[in-house]
């Protein structure tokens, strides 16, 4: 099956600083794909290149196999929802939504029906005559989405659309977006630095850092099997430790031996080890792999979060059991929950590494 959009070896620099370096990415029809990464990782630039607002220095942008590098944004079959909404302040809601339709010369009746449909879709029916300034941030965002989707784009580009909203509203809008995506049946390309947003909404998550794609996969893959320390650190909380792969299915961490399920790393090879805080099981002293003492305890609602000093490392642990500060405990991990990763070898890959 051919993909809808292909980015082929895209490079882009601003003032001599490389933002994207030979980036390859393909987007399938009807996919919710999220570009996730810290600020400055190149995710917004990637989106702007797809939208046509930036020209890549090198590489091709293919839409259904055809190069669209020379096609200006107003001629592309995609629409963008901007970070700060970018509603036209001198037009009311109706005029904002109608803008694209009027430009493409649609009939009055068609435009009126479309506006009504779009407002219903974003749960703002009856807002036609309101002014932009009279809407809250969340409402403006919905209008921005409505304004984009009435043009029936094949792809909707969303540039941190929820960034300016407060937490509760953001969570509501996440569900809204998923619903919209399902109702419209079009492709969403979504940019965010919020890993929770990415995991909640996406079919596919692309984790980026410093102009490179770090890992691409379903939210489950990204979370459960991070390919390198950066991804592990960026997605969720984790304990990242230096380890030595003694042999297949046995890794040494902090001088203690842990059983694991990974094979094929060779013997006595230095590796990065990732253990998610919720995967650590606390036992009575002596019953686990290594012993330690609880040094911090915070109640988080769903669970307790603890820090345990053990083997000279501060372990982050999430558990429903409460262990007060000073309690001696023992740490144990299911072999299946220990994630082994190669250390970055070349200098290029070093750039990928976690910045502490």
């Amino acid at each position, binding site marked *: 099956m051919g993909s809808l959009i292909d980015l082929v070896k895209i490079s882009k620099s601003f003032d001599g600083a490389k933002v994207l370096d030979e980036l390859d990415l393909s987007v399938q029809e009807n996919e919710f794909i999220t570009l996730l990464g810290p600020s400055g990782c190149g995710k917004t630039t990637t989106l702007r290149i797809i939208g046509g607002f930036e020209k890549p220095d090198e590489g091709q942008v293919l839409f259904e196999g055809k190069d669209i590098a020379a096609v200006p944004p*107003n001629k592309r079959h995609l629409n963008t929802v*901007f970070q*700060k909404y970018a509603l*036209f302040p*001198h037009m009311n809601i109706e005029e904002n939504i109608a803008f694209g339709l009027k*430009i493409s010369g649609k009939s009055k009746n068609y435009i009126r029906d479309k506006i009504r449909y779009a407002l219903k879709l974003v749960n703002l029916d009856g807002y036609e005559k309101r002014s932009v300034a009279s809407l809250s941030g969340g409402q403006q965002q919905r209008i921005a989405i409505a304004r984009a989707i009435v043009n029936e784009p094949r792809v909707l580009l969303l540039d941190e659309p929820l960034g300016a909203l407060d937490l509760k509203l953001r969570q509501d809008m996440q569900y809204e977006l998923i619903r919209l995506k399902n109702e419209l049946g079009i492709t969403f390309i979504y940019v965010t630095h919020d890993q929770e947003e990415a995991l909640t909404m996406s079919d596919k998550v692309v984790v980026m850092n410093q102009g490179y794609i770090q890992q691409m996969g379903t939210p489950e893959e990204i979370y459960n099997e991070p390919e390198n320390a950066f991804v592990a650190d960026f997605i969720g909380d984790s304990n990242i430790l230096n380890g030595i792969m003694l042999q297949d299915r046995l890794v040494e961490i902090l001088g203690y031996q842990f059983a694991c399920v990974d094979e094929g790393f060779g013997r006595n090879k230095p590796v990065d080890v990732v253990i998610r805080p919720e995967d650590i099981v606390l036992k009575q002293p002596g019953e686990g792999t290594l012993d330690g003492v609880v040094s911090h305890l915070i109640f988080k609602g769903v669970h307790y979060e603890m820090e345990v000093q053990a083997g000279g490392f501060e372990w982050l642990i999430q558990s429903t059991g409460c262990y007060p500060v000073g309690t001696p405990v023992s740490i144990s991990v299911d072999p299946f929950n220990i994630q082994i990763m190669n250390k970055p070898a070349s200098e290029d890959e070093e750039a990928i590494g976690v910045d502490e």
Partner: protein
Amino acid sequence: MSRKLLAGPYLIWMICCTVVPLGMIVYYGLTDRSGAFTFANLSAITVPAHAKALGLALLLAVISTLICLILAYPLGLILRKTGLGQKGFVVFLFILPMWMNFLLRTMAWQTILEKHGVINGILSFLGLPSLRLINTPAAIVMGMVYDFLPFMVLPVYNVLMKIDNSVVEAARDLGASNRQILFKILIPLSVPGIVSGITMVFIPSLTTFVIPNMLGGGKLLLIGNIIDQEFTVGSNWHLGSGLSLVMMVFILISMLFLAKFDKGGEGNAF
């Protein structure tokens, strides 16, 4: 709190030096030399010489305002687009000429437009017939445009620079061409700047007496010349005040007309 009182000296000054003096003009305009109430000073505008001066002033002011707008708007767009739009540079470029005295700058156009001046010199050098430039209404318009162009450029430029680029990108994203972006986004959003630019060019153009004196050869009289003469030569201050009042009415009408376009926005030059 007493912080509000800090505006006190300002208020007193502005009331004493703007509001009260305006009252004086009204008083003088509505009385004759003996102090009796009269409308004669106002109706004096119907005297053919006065009416003609007002008409000519209105016409030339409208023309020079339009020319200023047509020159300034593309300039604002270019400055917005190119990196040259740093505020300091533009203000620098357009305020600096004011340090060459206003009268001298206008005088210099005499040299340029004269019968044997710079332009005709160039024309005769090229073997072209010379033009009569000085002492024509066109020369006056020229002087107005030259003197007041900065007052159009600065507010237009300021408002254009304030337009968020993402709004322009959004329009392009929704299919608008460059032309559509100009007419549907940029121009409507820059109305406050345009309105304040028009005000700041139209009013001094309408009321000037220096420019027609210098470039009109003293033969073409605008309403400003008539008023000036009443105060300095003719010394009928009542008539001068009356004509000023009539002129102010026209300014007021044009302001109200403009205000219809600029709903609630306060365009600022600086």
